[in-house]
């Protein structure tokens, strides 16, 4: 009998573990709260000039070269800098370097190091550290990455570093936002990291928080304003709303319109975008999606405005190609209107393609971002109007990754894809031979223009090529690009200066108390 009880107890423990593995978050949705008028949350942190930022993802590594999560890069942005760093406009500005020059043949970039840039331990940044950092990052990124284009790195003198390339590229300089770290600290990269950024590392508790404080020796005069920042992990957005209302955290991003509506008046809701290309990606190798008419028919059938309205209260940016509007220089806005919501047109195209009565397919949706599932549901409703039956298969993100992204074993999937500062990073996945071409898109014309775009040295011509690429994707209806979702950020009303970046970054150096 007692042995039975022991077994039962262990089974209960195991079942609990299994149930948790299966369901993840079980917190019910908060049911609104009263709004208070007036100023910001009185947290007592204003007196110490510090803020607590809620972050939605755990940090996977404190070593900037090994950090993979977008959520980690967003935080480490405050501790580390590259030769150049991103600006809110999506351009780059010199950081550890004071100046750079791309050679006319685009085969080398010459960097002049900035005077007076020091690591957080007080030591000066040397040309050797720069060479070491870029080489280490390139090594970690591997043979397939953009960094394989580096031929060698030459230290011309104490203040000058030249990066030589194998293939001409005017975009490679965008990649040199990679962190410059002191070689002397190699043993402690993952435990007590040292960089050149506005904040220096104080402590980190895995899965809980990361604490940083102002670096007095920062090269940019007057920054940062704050004396300290705690990044606290709050993975559940609904939980974060509770934390905001309780005054536990000052800033939290990626809220949906519903969630933002339940945050009290102590916070301002700022609107930006998440800089993702969200949509229904189609496996171009699987029938019937191998027929351009079918893909176009789906595009005509899908009501993108309805998705935006229902999920993001109309605040997202509707798109028609694989590019984010925040990349203003390269973005081709014409693609937004290539397709309109036109049921008759959709039916006509379907009939032409030989599916007058529609067909049935499955949309695979990863569970890591709630709006994906809602988007899939609305698309399924839209498609029902033209006789297509879409079934939705909700899977764990890791399963999606394994089977859909790597295995390419799916029909359609609602996800979001991103890119980095270099425009090519948005389009490389549509090159027919690319290892991450998970949609199996194959258009020789696209491949040709892509090669021209990346090799082009003239900035204006480059823009033209990239715009052309976007139009090709739109005309082919390579996938059903829906929107760049809105990113609602709650910020303590006593704070000002919060800015959005077109990359993963939460820049705390420009935030201050009013």
């Amino acid at each position, binding site marked *: 009998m007692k042995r039975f009880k022991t077994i039962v107890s262990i089974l209960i423990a195991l079942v609990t573990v299994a149930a948790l593995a299966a369901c993840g978050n079980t917190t019910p949705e908060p049911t609104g709260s009263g709004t208070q008028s007036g100023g910001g949350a009185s947290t007592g942190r204003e007196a110490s000039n510090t803020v607590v930022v809620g972050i939605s993802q755990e940090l996977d590594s404190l070593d900037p070269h090994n950090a993979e999560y977008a959520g980690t890069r967003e935080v480490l942005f405050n501790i580390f800098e590259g030769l150049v760093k991103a600006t809110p406009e999506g351009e780059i500005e010199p950081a550890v370097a004071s100046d750079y020059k791309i050679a006319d043949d685009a085969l080398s970039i010459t960097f002049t190091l900035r005077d007076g840039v020091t690591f957080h331990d007080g030591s000066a940044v040397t040309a050797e550290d720069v060479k070491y950092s870029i080489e280490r990052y390139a090594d970690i990124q591997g043979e397939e990455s953009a960094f394989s284009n580096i031929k060698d790195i030459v230290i011309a003198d104490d203040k000058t570093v030249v990066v030589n390339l194998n293939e001409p590229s005017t975009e490679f300089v965008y990649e040199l936002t990679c962190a410059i770290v002191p070689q002397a600290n190699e043993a402690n990269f993952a435990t007590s990291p040292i960089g050149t950024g506005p904040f220096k590392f104080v402590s980190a508790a895995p899965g809980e928080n990361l604490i940083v404080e102002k670096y007095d020796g920062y090269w940019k005069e007057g920054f940062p304003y704050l004396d300290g920042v705690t990044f606290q992990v709050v993975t559940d957005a609904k939980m974060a709303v509770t934390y905001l209302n309780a005054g536990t955290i000052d800033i939290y991003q990626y809220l949906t319109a519903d969630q933002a509506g339940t945050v009290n008046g102590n916070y301002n809701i700022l609107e930006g975008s998440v800089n993702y290309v969200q949509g229904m990606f189609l496996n171009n190798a699987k029938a019937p999606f191998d027929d351009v008419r079918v893909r176009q028919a789906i595009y005509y059938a899908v009501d993108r405005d309805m998705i935006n309205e229902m999920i993001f209260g109309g605040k997202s940016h509707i798109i028609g190609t694989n590019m984010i509007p925040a990349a203003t220089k390269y973005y081709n806005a014409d693609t937004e209107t290539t397709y309109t919501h036109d049921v008759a047109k959709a039916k006509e195209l379907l009939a032409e393609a030989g599916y007058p009565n529609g067909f049935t397919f499955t949309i695979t949706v990863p569970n890591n971002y709630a709006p994906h599932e809602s988007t899939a549901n609305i698309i399924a409703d839209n498609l029902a109007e033209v006789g297509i039956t879409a079934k939705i298969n909700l899977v764990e993100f*890791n399963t999606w990754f394994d089977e859909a992204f790597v295995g390419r074993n799916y029909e359609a999937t609602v996800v979001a894809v991103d890119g980095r500062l270099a425009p090519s990073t948005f389009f490389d996945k549509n090159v027919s031979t690319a*290892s991450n071409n998970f949609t199996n898109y194959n258009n020789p014309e696209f491949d040709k223009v892509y090669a021209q775009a990346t090799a082009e040295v003239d900035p204006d011509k480059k823009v033209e090529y990239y715009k052309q690429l976007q139009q090709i994707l739109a005309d082919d209806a390579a996938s059903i690009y829906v929107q760049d979702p809105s990113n609602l950020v709650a910020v303590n009303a006593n704070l000002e200066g919060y800015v959005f970046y077109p990359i993963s970054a939460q820049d705390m150096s420009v935030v201050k108390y009013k």
Partner: protein
Amino acid sequence: MKYVLKKIITLIVALLLISLIVFLAFSVLPSDAAIAKLGQNATPERLAALREQMGLNQPVFVRYFVWIGNAFRGDFGQSLQYTGVSVNSLIAGRLGNSALLSLISFIMVIVFSIPIGIFSAKRRTVVGKATMTTVTQLTMGIPSFFLGVLITYAFSLGLKWFIIGQYTPPAKSFGAAVVYLIFPALAISLPKIAMTVKFLATSIRSELHKDYVRTAYAKGCTRNQVLYGHVLKNSMVPVITFLGVIVAEIVAGSIVVEQVFAVPGIGTLLITAITNRDYPVVEAVVLLIAFFIIAINFIVDMIYMAVDPRVKL
């Protein structure tokens, strides 16, 4: 002594079996730690490199035996998710928080349920009975995590008695830690208090009908003398076993409630480790919990033997 030895052997076999089941479960689950870590940035080449670095390219049984060999020496390896962090240090940093939470919850169960249980066994009016049944049934029916959300709304957002998410570890301030943990402990223990009250009251009432009670009354004992001198001791025997189960349930319940109150305990660690396929962490935490539950059962058996001399183990 022979009994203790037998128990220890059972314990080792049980732990070995559990560790194997968890290991096999992880090899059946789709995806692995390398995919969880790389996310959409992964290319097949980088995945392969990371799998090799994590040792995931070896067959599952090889990995199991390497792992179990190290575990015997007390080394549970490195976390796959957090680069350069050992499993031991992850658990050490969190065990105290979880232990304190479970302890406070258990104390609350004892302190509240025994007096209320006796009280409800004594008061047998119709109204009293109905009220008691309603309250206990209702409290038992609410899941802990939901109770946690209600408590957060009432005591953090409403009364502002504590700030949700601002937990101070006991190493920094023991008092502050206890004050914060009272609220999650309440969420964990309320349903358990209701169960224990019901169980104890039933146990007392069934004892009250036994012959020795009539004898006690016959020799002139007062009602309270009978209740506290004779009945309570006898009715506690099944309650001790029940409390053993309650402790196990408190540990299981704290896994969920820690999440709601953002207590950095082994429960939150376990959940993130499962999501990230961080099997060395999951293995160690599951083994720890299993060990604890088996130990509790062992202790219950010992107490049982001490309380009731008829029990021969």
